[in-house]
């Protein structure tokens, strides 16, 4: 143990609290002796010199690993989940010949009637669409008129009225259905088996 260390430990023992790291100039009572504290450190170790070729090889390895993972992910992303309902099972494809109906041909008259019916249907749907559009216009106009009238009465009430209605979301609606619900209907027992495949 060097003398310096010894002195330093002695200063720690002293009752007067003296900040150790401050070296100040004293004007009245002279400070007799001071010492710098021990630095808790050691000289830096010399860095090991690595072969640059090895470092390069390691980096390359890392890179390859990541690239492989990315490729794997991309490959899976491109593969879409099959919809079993949309694919014809092999069982049916194999026996397709047995499954033909071999119906007698459709007569000229029926084909003609069908063509006429299609045209009639088109006209019917078009008229329906036009009527719907006119109806929507009419409803929109009625609302605009109400809002205009409201604005004439009071700007403030108008501003309140054109605020979005947050109660509307989420919007849920059911029906209409084919037959009305039966009151107090007890559905027959049965199990619900979900057989859809997990992906």
């Amino acid at each position, binding site marked *: 143990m060097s003398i310096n260390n010894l002195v330093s430990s002695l200063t720690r023992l002293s009752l007067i609290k003296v900040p150790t790291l401050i070296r100040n100039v004293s004007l009245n009572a002279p400070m007799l002796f001071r010492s710098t504290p021990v630095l808790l450190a050691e000289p830096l170790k010399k860095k090991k010199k690595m072969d640059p070729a090895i470092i390069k090889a390691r980096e390359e390895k890392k890179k390859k690993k990541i690239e492989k993972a990315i490729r794997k992910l991309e490959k899976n992303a491109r593969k879409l989940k099959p919809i079993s309902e949309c694919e014809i099972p092999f069982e049916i494809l194999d026996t397709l010949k047995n499954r033909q*109906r071999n119906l007698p041909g459709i007569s000229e008259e029926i084909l003609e009637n069908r063509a006429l019916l299609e045209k009639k249907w088109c006209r019917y749907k078009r008229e329906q669409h036009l009527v719907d559009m006119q*109806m929507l216009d009419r*409803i929109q106009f009625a609302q605009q008129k109400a809002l205009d009238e409201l604005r004439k009465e*009071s700007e403030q009430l108008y501003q309140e009225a054109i605020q979005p209605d947050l109660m509307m979301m989420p919007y849920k609606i059911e029906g209409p259905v084919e*037959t*009305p619900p039966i009151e107090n209907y007890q559905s027959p027992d049965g199990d619900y088996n979900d057989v859809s495949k997990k992906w």
Partner: protein
Amino acid sequence: MLKNHFQLLKQSCNQLKHVVSVRTQAQNTTNQKWDLFSAVCLERKPVVTPALTEIEKEYKQYLKDLEFELSVKSNFELRHEADVKHLAVLKEGGEIDDTEVNLKQTAQDLKDLWNAEAAEFKPADKITDADKKNDLKSLNRKLDKHLIFVVNQKLGDKKLYMLPQGLRQDGETLRQVAERVLKETIGSELKTQIYSNAPCGFYKYKYPANIQQERNVVGAKIFIYFARYLKGQPSLKGIDYKWLDRTELDKTLPPQYKSSVQQFLIDE
């Protein structure tokens, strides 16, 4: 700096203009004072689908035929054919060496069984008791039609069936008035939903001359809000109300009021 000042000046000028315009508006309204009402058009949507029209039926049948023609036989149909063949062989005294064939319960037997089970289930009738009794107060009437809620109200010295309505108090928005009116007339048992903060229809009428002078109010402006019935059966006592479909509404409402109500309703 100078530019900034100039802009500020411009802004304050605009504000001044705005204030002036608001004032003139206010003057306009004070000259002609109107009572503001909110009314609620409460509608029950159809519960069941309406009957198909002639052409819809025809087209449906056509699509069904087409579907059949383009289809191939199903597994069940194949089984049925095989069963028929096997039975014919057995009848002639032949033998079937295939052990998997089960002729105790043929495809036809299964079909009959399922048909019998399906026939056992009776769906509810589209024509309800309320329809038979012509109960105008029931929500169970005319399931395939839109129904509108109307209340008998006293208007001056007349009593008319109209949409429930209420006068706006100070500090209320029209939507709040509509909500209050709904609650006051049908209570809270019936679940309803008002569509949007904006009114969907408008109607105004002038008061008779003596009331106009007495109260210094020209007339009433009614802003109609649209509401949808969600669920619940109300037990409404003490008020005279009806659930009406479009044609009945046409006969019941007062003529001019009717046209402004019908303007925002969906056709049937």
